[in-house]
């Protein structure tokens, strides 16, 4: 099996993702340049965080039209697994691969700190290694992280169990204090209906080794690896 990490101009978490997959998971991984249109041979593609194209116009808006995204879209429609982290999540929404949009943080500040997340859905190939309801710690680092969707889209997300992570208190309560950016219903991460695309604002790759005070994020990479190895 093989992972791919897309590199957009302005990506800055690409090496972190690469490092986790290669050195922590010991799995094969290649960078994919944003001008690449051939993504054959990959099983899981990571869209990393950063500021693709300077975040001009809207975060992820220009990135969603880069050549590689056409291929990533086809790849996902054929069942390929995609993880979008932070700016990668924004790109997935701008591409229409995940529902909703991102607004400026409610407090207008760039927030860079650890947050608590409640694992709402463990039936996805990305979260099968977690316990349902498990509270995990990962950092966020964003200025535009306030998830938003209209009521109809929210209802759809809930109906299909597409909400994967919610911001919560240390004890797992979904409340306002645990919500760092004002995201609607504390939503931190969602998947598509089919369950092969995950998008999330927190950074699992920055919480994949004990040295970084939390290794909770590693479970996402391990879950998807185990899933791919099982079905392949």
């Amino acid at each position, binding site marked *: 099996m093989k992972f791919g990490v897309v590199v957009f101009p302005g990506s800055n978490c690409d090496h972190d993702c690469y490092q986790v997959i290669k050195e922590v998971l010991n799995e094969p991984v290649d960078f994919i340049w944003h001008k690449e249109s051939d993504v054959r041979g990959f099983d899981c593609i990571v869209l990393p965080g950063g500021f693709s194209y300077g975040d001009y116009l809207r975060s992820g808006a220009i990135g969603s039209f880069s050549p590689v995204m056409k291929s990533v879209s086809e790849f996902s429609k054929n069942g390929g697994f995609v993880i979008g982290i932070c700016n990668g999540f924004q790109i997935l*929404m701008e591409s229409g691969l995940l529902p909703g949009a991102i*607004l400026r*943080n409610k407090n207008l500040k760039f927030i860079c700190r650890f947050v608590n997340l409640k694992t709402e859905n463990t039936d996805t190939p990305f979260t099968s290694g977690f316990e349902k309801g498990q509270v995990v710690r990962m950092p966020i680092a964003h200025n535009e992280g306030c998830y938003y969707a209209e009521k109809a889209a929210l209802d759809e997300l809930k109906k299909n169990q597409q909400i994967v992570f919610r911001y919560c208190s240390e004890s797992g309560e979904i409340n306002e204090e645990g919500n760092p950016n004002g995201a609607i219903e504390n939503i931190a991460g969602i998947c598509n209906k089919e369950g092969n695309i995950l998008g999330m604002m927190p950074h699992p790759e920055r919480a994949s080794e004990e040295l970084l005070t939390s290794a909770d994020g590693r479970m996402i990479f391990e879950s998807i690896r185990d899933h791919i190895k099982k079905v392949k």
Partner: protein
Amino acid sequence: MPLVKIYIKLKKGVLDPQGKTVKNSLDSLGYSFVKDVRIGKYMEITVDDISEDEINKKIEEACKKLLANPVIENYSFEIVDNKNQ
């Protein structure tokens, strides 16, 4: 050459913390008659001298595809002649 003025606004009900902060600032300056502030984007796009119908069609498409995000934003635009500016 014709100029297209594009206005992009956050949809009603979408949180606008920037607008709220500006409103609070206006309040503190004594402009208490200000009831609400919403902040959007304004773009000026110079285009080829093609028919108005064609400009309308293409700009409409560009707004939907790239310039505005229909999940959170509404857009409107008007075509003016650059020579009159």
